[in-house]
């Protein structure tokens, strides 16, 4: 079903640039309308953010202390969010911060703190060598694919607004996967509740 125009009775419509004159006062929006990855600022931002992301990711595996690793992981997530912003994917960037930096990392922190000896840091493990080999293999595969692929360069301009497009896609074209995902999450939540219920209650309900 096509989106109904909402201007019939003068209802509010969010236009891209609501300035009557030709110039748009909002500099951010004007910058977003330029061709992406062309101006120096975006290129500098990309390299700085890439350095932060990769450096923090290295920190995650390099540091011994688990809490420090999580802090590095959060920094890495924030760097990825910044990379999304350079791609003008504002909704995905903010969601990245909300879900990964704000929620997932907090869950990891919870898990670490609630685990005994969690703050003693990473222990040695006999799987060091296999893990190194596996990591090298994955890195090699990814690197090879990245170099071998003939990357198409898009000539399109930056998106004006991604949230409404994503919302329509989720609730229109991909509504079934969206709903199935929500049911899956509900099942997971119920499962967690059942798992942590006291034993006595389960016996009572079983009888």
């Amino acid at each position: 079903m096509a989106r109904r125009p909402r201007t019939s009775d003068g209802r509010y419509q969010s236009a891209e640039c609501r300035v009557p004159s030709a110039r748009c006062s909002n500099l951010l929006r004007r910058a977003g309308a330029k061709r992406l990855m062309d101006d120096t600022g975006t290129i500098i931002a990309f390299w700085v953010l890439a350095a932060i992301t990769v450096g923090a990711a290295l920190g995650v595996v390099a540091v011994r202390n688990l809490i420090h690793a999580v802090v590095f992981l959060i920094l890495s997530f924030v760097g990825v969010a910044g990379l999304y912003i350079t791609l003008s994917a504002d909704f995905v960037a903010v969601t990245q911060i909300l879900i990964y930096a704000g929620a997932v990392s907090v869950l990891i922190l919870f898990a670490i703190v609630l685990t005994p000896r969690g703050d003693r840091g990473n222990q040695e493990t006999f799987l060091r060598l296999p893990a190194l080999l596996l990591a090298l293999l994955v890195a090699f595969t990814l690197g090879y694919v990245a170099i071998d692929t003939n990357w198409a360069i898009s000539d399109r301009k930056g998106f004006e607004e991604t949230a409404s497009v994503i919302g329509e896609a989720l609730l229109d074209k991909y509504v079934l996967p969206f709903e199935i995902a929500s049911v899956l999450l509900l099942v997971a939540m119920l499962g967690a509740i059942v798992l942590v219920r006291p034993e006595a209650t389960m016996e009572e309900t079983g009888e």
Partner: protein
Amino acid sequence: MIRPLAEWYDLRDIGNAVGALLEQIEDWGAPEWVPYVVSGVIGVLAILLWTVISVLAFIWIERRVVGLMQNRIGPNRVGPSGLLQPVADALKLLFKEPVTTHNADRVLFWLAPVVIFIPTIVVFAVIPFGERMVLADLNVGVLFLIAIGSINTIAVFMAGWSSNNKYALIGAMRTIAMLISYELIQVLVLLAAVLFAGSMRLGDIVAWQQDYGVWLLFLQPLGLLGYVIAGAVEMNRSPTDIAEAESEIVAGYHTEYGGIKFGFFYQAEYLAGFAIAAVIVTLYMGGWTLWGVEEWVPGWLIFLAKLYGVFFIYIWSRGTLPRLRIDQLMAFAWKFLLPLALVNVLVVGGEMLLWQEADLSSGEALPLFGVINALLAVALIGGWAWFLGQLRPERVAHRAILTQEVGAIYYGEAAADL
């Protein structure tokens, strides 16, 4: 919606002056990034200046007002009526020795006060102080507010964990449990507000309220209530400040902090309060508009007046309400606010569908929705509270029985048995 630039001296909106300056810079032939950077620097400096002044002012106001509420005088020695007390406090904090506890995680201990400052100040970037006075009017503004608010948690956790103090750690864990619960409520109530306005850009939401001449608070009483409570939890103020409940866990996550590092936490708490109040004003109370008065009075003055008014309500509740226990607070989020917020979203979704499909004019639809939502809010709060009360197992209060065998004192039923 936005009018073209007025003359630079039209200070009803300081954005006019800044806009004129930027145009002038462009006319001088500067490259395109120069006005961009200049506008950013001006915005950041203006927000920083405003926050510092407001925080200093409100430290004094809050202490005096809470003093009045608690039947005492409050600070009145430094300067006239104690006006310079915040300055003296700040100087004292600056000159205090920064103590780091034994076995503390030094890096995170130093980092936490800095990190907590970032999200609390960044929030103000998307707040429209006036028609043009917004640093970055993101089109995902509402989501940005929630996302940035969730970063606070990590800084608080860093502080609590790195202090190597059990009270600090307990405070940090409480904060996380609390913020995760109330973030959900925030998302749901803001979703309902966004559904009404049809945009996540804060400037658009203000413009929507201006267009229809109605504040969202009349259409969303339940949502406003949920946001006010969730906001109180997020800003960690007194009825809900279990993360630093001084009667239970010393000072929570900043137990071990002193000097200017504590000052950072203190100021971040105030800024979080201002941010919540600013969001309430923008989303529910029409932002910088006031039914046409903004033509004559600068919009930013209206905005600030509303903001301080909302913040005063939080001071008031701090002065009057007793602190909740953590289990009460968590149960309130999950058992009470969450179902109501879900019903609220459902109702608003249905109303928006009705508005679109039945071709109602806004003059018919909005008063109807306002009445429906107000009645629904009352019915839901009353009904759900009654229902939860029915579920509660009945407890008969007994007086404590001190001794039965030794037999010195008998109370209650035991005494009746004699």
